[in-house]
């Protein structure tokens, strides 16, 4: 059952990214380009995605457990840490530079050519690099 939910969710996520145009790097960069030819499409995507998710969180509050799992994710502490701020800024800089983030980069793998593949390879390497970086920060703080 968990596998079916995972596969369905991944497939719908990919289709949603394709339909919404978020696999198109120029649309994402157009949204971030507030001093140029601004493209508000991303706001519609984010707004559209938040609607069903907000309903889902309300349902989750009323239920004891998910259909195929033990618990719902606990609310993490709400501290705005340095890692959250710095990490998000680094992420945002790369997002603007190429117009891609993790979800769309995978959704576009089959038609994104060698360029998409190179981006995903570098992204995975960056993800692995974050492990020792977090450990060093944790050890020194």
């Amino acid at each position, binding site marked *: 059952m968990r596998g079916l939910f995972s596969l369905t969710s*991944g497939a719908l996520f990919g289709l949603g990214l394709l*339909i919404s145009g978020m696999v198109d790097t120029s649309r994402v*960069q157009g949204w971030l380009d507030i001093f140029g030819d601004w493209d508000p499409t991303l706001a519609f995507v984010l707004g559209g995605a938040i609607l069903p998710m907000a309903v889902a969180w309300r*349902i989750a509050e009323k239920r004891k457990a998910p259909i195929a799992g033990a618990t719902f994710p606990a609310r993490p502490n709400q501290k705005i840490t340095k890692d*959250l701020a710095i990490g998000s800024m680094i992420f945002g800089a790369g*997002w*603007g530079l190429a117009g891609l983030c993790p979800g769309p980069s995978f959704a576009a793998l089959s*038609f994104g050519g060698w360029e998409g593949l190179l981006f995903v390879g570098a992204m*995975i390497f960056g993800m692995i690099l974050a492990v020792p970086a977090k450990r060093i920060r944790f050890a020194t703080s």
Partner: protein
Amino acid sequence: MIEQSYIYGLVGGLVIGLAGAIYLLGNGRIMGASGIIGGLVDGSGLSEWRDRALFVFGLIAAPWIAVKVMNLDAQTNITSDPVILIAAGLLVGFGARLANGCTSGHGVCGISRLSLRGIAATGFYLFAGGVSVLLFKHLLGVI
């Protein structure tokens, strides 16, 4: 007149939100792309590797099938500059994992839960993304 891309954006967004709702109410997990992928590649989430692998498989396969079946001309308009691709990939992967989330986890799932961390993260990456485009497009002219 409303641009057609806004309607596609809204419909696609609703499908993305539905995907997140299934992942949450079905498996009790937050649908964050960087978390699901990151947990596979750095070994931190191997206990749930099957869920993660099936999600990633669906994420790659569904758009591939849709493009083939409907004969779509899906454009990524991605840069062909290898230096930019590598630099951007490194920044996106490293930053998302350091922040414990990206546009899907912090943005879609976090904001809809009114999570302060999700809202703050979204503010930070939108700001940095805007500065990045301003710098690399308008000031340096490299993208």
